[in-house]
């Protein structure tokens, strides 16, 4: 990219000539199959894209090299050549023993990271034997009501070697406490634990509706976990800011991205108000996106996500960005 003005003018003239001489007769012979071609999210897509569609593009400003600002081309200089993505299969059902067996099966088949699906009572903060939990046990995930359940869930799994993601929101801090307490009992320094807490309450209010407390105390809890993680579990991702559920609720790709990034910026503001240093906590905020059927729309969404987040961090919050974005 980065085009010469003169060449661009020449290109536009060529393109107009092509439309007259080549495209026109083709359309006369064989009209297109539809009047409008749109993405999964109803965004209209043109017949053809050429340099004229990105006339002001500046490679170094808008794309940058991989691993460098604004991270459009990815956060690692070597992409997936150096660091393979983590194959992380979300799993959980029934009692802790059943899910433990599934985790071990997945690891034996080449799965690289764990991801816990909790059942609905756990997600809403109820013990399995609560009257509110009746009929909901174990059907969309595993039930974890205590430290003991957490210990059974991870029995025989080396916590210092795996990364564990936990999809839990309103009661996230409580389940995280079980995980940390389990590591302590095994003699593992919590500072060495690696994993991710979903802990994204804003998207619960927006889309998934598994909230318990009102927004302000909910945000206090999230900020407490960000603060605690920054000080004591520096390798733990304290929030996984999630577009997934927004998309599943029927949003467009743009809405998924816009609302998720807006949520992310809100967590940043609350953490700054708490007096935390953005260069310390922001690298531990991670994101979680959906990937729907429309191939290029999803790829564009992910590339735009990195660029917008990098720009907001640097320009709005003056974060010093070193690697990874």
């Amino acid at each position, binding site marked *: 990219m980065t085009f010469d003005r003169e060449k661009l003018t020449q290109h536009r003239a060529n393109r107009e000539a092509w439309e007259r001489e080549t495209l026109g007769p083709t359309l006369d012979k064989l009209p297109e199959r539809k009047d409008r071609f749109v993405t999964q999210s109803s965004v209209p897509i043109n017949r053809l894209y050429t340099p004229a569609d990105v006339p002001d593009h500046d490679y170094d400003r808008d794309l940058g090299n991989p691993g460098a600002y604004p991270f459009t081309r990815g956060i690692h200089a070597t992409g997936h050549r150096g660091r393979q993505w983590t194959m992380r299969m979300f799993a959980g059902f029934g009692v802790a023993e059943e899910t433990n067996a599934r985790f071990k099966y997945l690891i034996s088949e080449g799965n690289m990271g764990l991801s816990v699906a909790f059942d609905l009572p756990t997600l809403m903060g109820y013990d399995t034997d609560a009257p509110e939990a009746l009929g909901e046990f174990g059907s969309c995930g595993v039930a974890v009501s205590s430290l003991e359940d957490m210990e059974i869930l991870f029995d025989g799994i080396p916590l210092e070697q795996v990364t564990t993601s936990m999809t839990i929101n309103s009661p996230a801090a409580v389940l995280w406490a079980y995980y940390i307490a389990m590591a302590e009992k095994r003699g593992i320094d919590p500072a060495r634990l690696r994993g991710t807490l979903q802990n994204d309450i804003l998207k619960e209010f927006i889309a998934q509706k598994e909230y318990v407390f009102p927004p302000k105390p909910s945000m206090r809890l999230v900020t407490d976990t960000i*603060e605690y993680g920054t000080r004591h579990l520096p390798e733990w991702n304290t929030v996984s800011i999630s577009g997934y559920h927004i998309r599943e609720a029927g949003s467009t790709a743009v809405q998924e991205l816009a609302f998720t990034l807006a949520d992310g910026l809100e967590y940043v503001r609350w953490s700054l108000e708490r007096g935390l240093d953005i260069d310390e906590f922001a690298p531990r905020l991670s994101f979680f996106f959906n990937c729907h059927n429309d191939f290029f729309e999803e790829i564009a969404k992910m590339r735009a996500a990195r660029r917008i987040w990098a720009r907001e961090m640097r320009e709005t919050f003056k974060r010093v960005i070193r690697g990874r974005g």
Partner: protein
Amino acid sequence: MRFHTQTAGVALTAQQPEVNVVRVAIQALAAVLGGTQSLHTNSLDEALALPSEHAVRIALRTQQVIAEETGVANTVDPLGGSYFVEALTDQTEAEVYAYFRRIDEIGGVLPAIEAGFFQQEIADASYRHQQEVDRGDRTIVGVNRYVTDEPLNIPILEMDPNGYQRQVERLRRLRERRDPVRVEQALNRLRNACDDQHENLMPYLLDAARSDVTLGETMAVMKQAFGLYQEPMSI
């Protein structure tokens, strides 16, 4: 920005569930080309049940094929510089900033939640999409076109039928075994900390966890301190 990706659960169909393997493969490929750090691939049976071991293995193998057979990871960001992909990336970015301005106009994320703004935007998009499907403007293979009446023939996960009893019994024994004084103290300290804005609750939750306080007991104290959320009726 590091991110995890999951293929779209809503794109899975209960009809002809084997076809989901193809959908998931294409979605997963997009996630890899989009530069994801972590990936979950849905299982073919997830529109019907919790995934069986067989279905989960195929979903995992899908990632392994992308990683090890297709060559898409041989170079960094192979789509970078595509006129189409760059134009669509720019357009996505511009539309995201337009939403940021609307959210700012409402006063920020929390006021926008309380006003039902996000919820309404999503509901409108979802309704438009469903109408397009219902009118047949959008094809869903095996659902509104290419339909078959072949009976379903995939294994469904069977769970331990005694799981619930086992879990309830385990909780009962835990409550009998633990030190009731420690439990009471941990809950009292947590209660006080909830009322003090300057306290970080994590040390108190850790103390409760170490004292074998259950999830429900912990949450009950916090519910008393914080109250419960009711969604605005505007939507």
